[in-house]
């Protein structure tokens, strides 16, 4: 007879001293964990609810301007700094961590319309309705760190006067050129008081300009004649012009796929295009209920943030038709400019109510240094939520966003209008000779023509 029975000595399974860690034994056999799937589902539900509870995206407002914030610029070389310009000619450098003004750049008469920093973060270019381009020396990061509460002011390095008012400026990536937009597009150099080149295609005002982050000699502009124009500086010529039904207020290149850009349109939508194929949008991003004023890509290239005239900020996935997140507060008015922070964790918006607002890019993210256990728990919650995201209860909780009443109503109205239009189109089609009316997809419908 051979016999063995389970026998456990207490010493083997418990700790020796009270200072030791408790001993842990694992057995991953599925049969000792009954109803695994149900448990996972309950955990997914709880994770979705917790996410909703912890969704507190608003971090704080940066108060200081005395008129609406019209433009902002990131400092590519310094994570904490952000420049903002307002309608009364005030330019400020903010420290995001302490949410204080670090220094001021006085000089502009009238509104500041464009701000851009050079890639090394030393030079700030500003322009405005007073027809002057100003170059500023950005104070070193050590002065930003200094803890004195007094605001410094800086004198401009250069002042270049031009013939017409400016609407926007952007700095080339890793070079010393910058482009201004106004009556036409001007390409400037840091050292010359007159533009190197000027472009004019059409007679209308150019309202925004953005250099391509991948190829520093390509830039895209939008103009009030409803066009998007691509320029190439190497050949000093225009490449393509795309005319849409409504004008684009702003444009942003995808930093990770620099052939693609997204334009913020007056018709409440954003349109993502492939620069090589402009006769069709890659994706239409719908959700805003009023004109989209500004757009900025996350450095990861996976999502972008938009600010709209409907007083909300939304975050879209780069390939998704609807927004992932909507941010609003009672006090935030029309949003004129938005920026993603350089580490993709924060979103900054500047609005009509003279404030800059700082938001988290992921509404329920836990800030600060996480313990490995906390990180693991967050990862697990994310995984189970992702696994059960199609179940109705989880989906409902994850998707739900509280909207201010005017926006909710406007969205409902927009839906009704779009539906009515669609129905009308359908009926028109039914009552006409077969094939005489064709419906274009929305990706093409808003495009009038493409000129080479």
């Amino acid at each position: 007879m051979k016999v063995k029975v389970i026998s456990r000595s207490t010493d083997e399974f418990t700790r020796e001293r009270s200072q030791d860690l408790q001993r842990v034994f694992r057995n991953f056999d599925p049969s000792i964990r009954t109803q695994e799937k149900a448990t996972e589902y309950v955990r997914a539900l709880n994770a979705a609810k917790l996410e909703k509870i912890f969704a507190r995206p608003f971090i704080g407002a940066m108060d200081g301007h005395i008129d609406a914030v019209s433009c902002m610029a990131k400092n590519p070389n310094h994570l904490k700094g952000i420049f903002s310009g307002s309608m009364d000619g005030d330019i400020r450098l903010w420290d995001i961590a302490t949410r204080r003004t670090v220094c001021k750049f006085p000089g502009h008469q009238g509104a500041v319309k464009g701000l851009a920093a050079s890639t090394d973060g030393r030079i700030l270019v500003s322009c405005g309705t007073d027809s002057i381009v100003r170059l500023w020396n950005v104070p070193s990061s050590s002065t930003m760190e200094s803890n004195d509460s007094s605001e410094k002011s800086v004198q401009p390095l250069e002042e270049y006067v031009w013939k017409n008012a400016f609407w926007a400026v952007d700095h080339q990536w890793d070079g010393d050129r910058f482009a201004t937009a106004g009556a036409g597009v001007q390409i400037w150099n840091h050292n010359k008081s007159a533009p190197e080149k000027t472009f004019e295609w059409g007679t209308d005002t150019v309202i925004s300009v953005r250099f391509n982050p991948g190829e520093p000699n390509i830039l895209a502009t939008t103009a009030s004649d409803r066009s998007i124009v691509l320029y190439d500086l190497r050949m000093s010529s225009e490449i393509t012009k795309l005319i849409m039904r409504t004008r684009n207020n702003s444009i942003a290149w995808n930093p990770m796929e620099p052939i693609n850009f997204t334009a913020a349109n007056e018709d409440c939508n954003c349109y993502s295009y492939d620069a090589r194929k402009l006769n069709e949008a890659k994706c239409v991003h719908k959700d805003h209920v009023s004109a989209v004023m500004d757009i900025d890509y996350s450095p990861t290239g996976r999502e972008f943030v938009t600010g709209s005239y409907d007083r909300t900020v939304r975050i879209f996935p780069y390939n998704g038709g609807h927004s992932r997140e909507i941010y609003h507060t009672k006090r935030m008015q029309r949003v004129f400019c938005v920026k993603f922070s350089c580490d993709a964790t924060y979103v900054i918006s500047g609005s009509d109510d003279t404030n800059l607002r700082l938001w988290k890019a992921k509404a329920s993210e836990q800030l600060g240094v996480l313990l490995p256990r906390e990180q693991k728990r967050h990862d697990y919650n994310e995984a189970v939520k992702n696994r059960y995201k199609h179940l109705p209860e989880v989906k409902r909780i994850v998707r739900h966003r509280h909207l201010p009443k005017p926006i909710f109503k406007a969205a409902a109205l927009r839906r009704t209008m779009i539906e009515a239009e669609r129905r009308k189109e359908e009926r028109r089609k039914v009552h006409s000779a077969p094939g005489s009316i064709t419906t274009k997809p929305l990706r093409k419908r808003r495009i009038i023509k493409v000129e080479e």
Partner: protein
Amino acid sequence: MFLCFMFMSKKVKMGVKAENGTLTKIVPPLEQQLSEEIDLKVKKYLRGEGANLEILQDKKLKGQLSVREELYGRSAKQAAKTEKWLMPSEGGYLEAEGIEKTWRIRQEDIAREVDISSSRNQFDITLPNLGPYTMDFTSSGRYMTFGGKKGHLAIVDMKNMNLVKEFQVRETVRDVVFLHNELFFAAAQKKYPYIYNRDGTELHCLKEHGAVSRLQFLKNHFLLASLNKSGQLHYQDVTMGEMVGNYKTGVGRTDVMKVNPFNGVVALGHSGGTVSMWKPTSSAPLLKILCHRGPVSALAFHPNGHLMATAGKEKKIKLWDLRKLDSELQNLPGHANTLDFSQKGLLARGTGSSVQVLGDFSGAQNYSRYMNHSMVKGYQIGKVLFRPYEDVLAIGHSMGWSSILIPGSGEPNFDSWVANPFETSKQRSEKEVRSLLDKLPPETIMLDPTKIGTLRPAKKKEKPTKQEREDEMEAAIESAKDMDFKRKTKGRNKPSKKVKKRQELVAKAKRPFLGQNTKEEELLARKKQKTSEEVELPVSLQRFAKKKAAT
């Protein structure tokens, strides 16, 4: 550890040989055996078959799912490989040598062979005044509560054989059950069930349940299920006190009740020989199975949830596969007042004063006797219960309770996060919070709990094609033609009559197919007519067409 080392050294040697080029393709038997073993383990962790991706049209989804499936496969393999280090203890066993038979081996023989700490698990507690006794273990097997029919309640720490608390309620106690941990237990008493804490303080009197004969606790759902004397099934949520379900079984009173641990379904055995299964969200039973010709006397579920054992008063014990209920798997002769499955799948049955343990040694769910144990003559066994994570069977009988060793019955490796026999009070309170967070809603109780989060397959009635129908008809005609007639008396067996009869038969065989045909053809014809009428009108005018026809 030694085995592991040997395995490693073998591997190293193999590597050398392969380099020399002498042995490149031949897999040595040991390695092959090892890989087979790992495959078996992987199967356990895979939790069933993967999805069939071949039928998917959506390429993107297919890609995503195949990546997911690959990940599952890899993690299962990883789990199987790490088992060796994570699960150090091996299970118990009892092997006969020579002409010995395992069922002839007595407890005294086992006691002589095993170590002292294990042999302490063999004892009889004689409590002649307040019996018969019933008992329950916590999920870790550390604590036991027992109740004597005449009102004797106690909690025992089984690890160091400590009596935690003992008290008298001075009325009938029919059943005791632990709630989620050893701090609380419920006792079904004369008029109502009560909830006590470990110190014997009465916390609740559950008057709504009435005079309860059996209690069960669903620990994933925190539900206390009870069956009272008028055959009413109650489910009460013990966290919030809400009565989740209250159903009349309508089949009379019974005291056979067990929870299937796999899915939380409560099974009741009735005096008519049926077993019914219940969930707290429906007033009708999920299932009714006619198991026995006589009353059902006992019931037990295998921990994997697919096997059910029932015992009838007509001296039959039957094993059922719950996934395929049309007939029983096995039919064993014998009485059983009480049945219980161990964690490793041994089945204990108690009758009169003897206990028999059956085991499945062929691996094909074919139970045969494994061990026998007889108590003192005259003892009436009321309940047998395996102690989780130990090779111990507890027996409650009319003269107290006993504990015997059944090697190979318990799971040798416990998981600290699931059930820990060496739990400290801090760990216990942490686990309580965690399990409360993971408390399942009562809706998750269903026959197949793996269905959660899956899609219901689309119902598609497949119609036979015309060709198939014709073939079928032809086959039917052929069979009718080939049919032999009975030889009849003279005069009634004329060839003309035979031909007529055969024609009739052929016509009869044809009839169902013909009817079908015409119906469908008619429908088709009607459709065709309709469409030809409508084609003449432009689309926009179609809505006026019917009106015209009416006028």
